[in-house]
């Protein structure tokens, strides 16, 4: 009886300890993520300046406003353009590089891997500014192109909407391909060599092995990198602000950048900004859900 009671006491103590360990982190996430999210939703129903906010009239005022807001729609278009072009190119290069680096007989593996991975060592602001300088009208890329005779005179890359978008996409690919490569390399290294041997015996050649053996085995990693890239691209901010300032004339602005401008740049329009940010949240959630559904089809 006594020992049983004591044993039960110990177990309760353990359980209490477990809860005590996870409480600080859990509380912080509730206070710093979930609670603000609820607040943002409430604020999205209000209008007026930050000190004096009232319920919108009608309550969906801020949401209705988005349908009229050409600039917000353009920022959605830009963000999705970056997403649709950049993410697939980047992930294909990342898989390819990982596959090449995973070759048993490759020499200088360490040097190649370090080089491919190196762009991750720069901060987002840093690389945005480096690319801004490289592609400046009086910058290195222009000088080279004019010298080679490809361009007859210096071209204003960042002052022309189409090329400014292209520069953002190139910069993104440069910065994030190595990052994603690391995931694939880790995934490839988990695949047993015997699986490849078996495929070889079954007569599978290079591409076939890659497509029918490697890709299916990498599927969980591929889904995850997709989700992360989508999440990251939908929140693109540093590049838009520092590479192009959203310009020329807001043609390259991203959703996060536009929301920031509505919150802290000039007139603070917290209600409207919260409404737009809530839309971003819903987009992230839907795309992540779709991705997980697609990734979950086990066959």
């Amino acid at each position, binding site marked *: 009886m006594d020992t049983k009671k004591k044993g039960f006491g110990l177990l309760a103590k353990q359980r209490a*300890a477990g809860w005590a360990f996870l409480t600080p982190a859990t509380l912080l996430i509730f206070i710093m993520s979930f609670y603000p999210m609820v607040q943002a939703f409430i604020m999205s129903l209000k209008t007026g300046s*930050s000190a004096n906010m009232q319920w919108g009239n009608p309550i969906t005022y801020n949401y209705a406003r988005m349908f009229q807001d050409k600039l917000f729609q353009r920022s959605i278009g830009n963000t999705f353009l970056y997403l649709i072009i950049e993410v697939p190119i980047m992930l294909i290069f990342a898989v390819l590089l990982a596959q090449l680096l995973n*070759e048993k007989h490759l020499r200088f593996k360490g040097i190649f891997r370090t*080089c491919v991975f190196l762009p991750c060592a720069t901060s987002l602001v840093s690389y945005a500014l480096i690319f801004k*300088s490289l592609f400046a009208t009086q910058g290195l890329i222009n000088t080279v192109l004019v010298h080679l005779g490809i361009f007859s005179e210096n071209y204003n890359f960042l002052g022309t909407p189409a090329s400014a978008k292209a520069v953002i996409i190139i910069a993104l690919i440069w910065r994030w391909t190595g990052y994603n490569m*690391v*995931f694939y390399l880790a995934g490839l290294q988990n695949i047993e060599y015997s699986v490849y041997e078996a495929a070889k015996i079954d007569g599978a050649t290079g591409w076939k092995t890659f497509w029918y053996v490697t890709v299916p085995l990498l599927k969980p990693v591929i889904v995850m990198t997709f989700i992360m890239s989508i999440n990251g691209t939908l929140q693109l901010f540093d590049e838009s602000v*520092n590479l192009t300032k959203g310009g020329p004339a807001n043609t390259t602005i991203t959703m996060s950048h536009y929301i920031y401008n509505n919150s802290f740049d000039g007139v603070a329009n917290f209600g409207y900004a919260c409404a737009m940010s809530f839309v971003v*949240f819903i987009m992230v959630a839907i795309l992540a859900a779709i991705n997980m559904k697609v990734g979950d089809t086990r066959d």
Partner: protein
Amino acid sequence: MKKNKSAIQRRLIPSYIFLTFWSLISVFPLYWMITAATNTTVEVARGKIWFGTNAAENFNKLISQNDLWGSMANSFKYSIVQTLLCLFVCSLAGFGFELYHDKIKDRLFALLLLAMMVPQVATMIPLFKMASGMKLLNSVWGFILPSISTPFMIMMFRQNSRNFPVDIMEAARMDGLSEVAIFFRMYLPVMKSTYAAAAVITFMNAWNSYLWPKVVMLDNSAQTMPMLIANLAAGYTIDYGVLMMGVLFCSIPTMVIFFILQKQFAEGITGAVK
């Protein structure tokens, strides 16, 4: 056998070419950043890609017009404090979630993961109001509070805790070790490599963060390195030599970490997926 080897290497020639090509592209912008920091803005514009003699001049201009050392100190302070607190809080939670797990805790953990989907811009305004209400603007607490506890870090510690030997925990309890002592005396030393990877990735993230500091660190005296270099490029005429000198200073700490702790950095990125 030897012939076989050279045949394999010959087959790999396209691989070498592509990897060399990609490596050059990866390295070149950073190499160029370093050379540009030593050149005048005119030389940079002319397309000079070799080291110049203007480094001292660029550096002097940079520190005379900007509080470089102040921003460096701020960035280091914020990043180090954030790393230490984040590691402590999240490892404690990962330990609790994995080694004391039951149904309710597992559900709670799944709920916390949803926070990964919350975009930064969505919580930015409420958090800004919270920080200004608590008089935390321009303070280290204002900078770190939203990022002390992240689902990613909790998940990383939780996943890696799976390898923690549970039998030893039982044995330790028999010996009368308290749960807290188990964490500090057993878990901490065993999980050293996870801590290292988590530290590298948290420090990098803190050092590189831009949106949130831009919102809460309003005073010049509180600004971070990314904010300083962003300001250098905000004017209409940019001195590219000075700008790249600033970018170089902003990149040195993360580059040093990258070259020394590359393995831990890679582990930190992929840490939560195992």
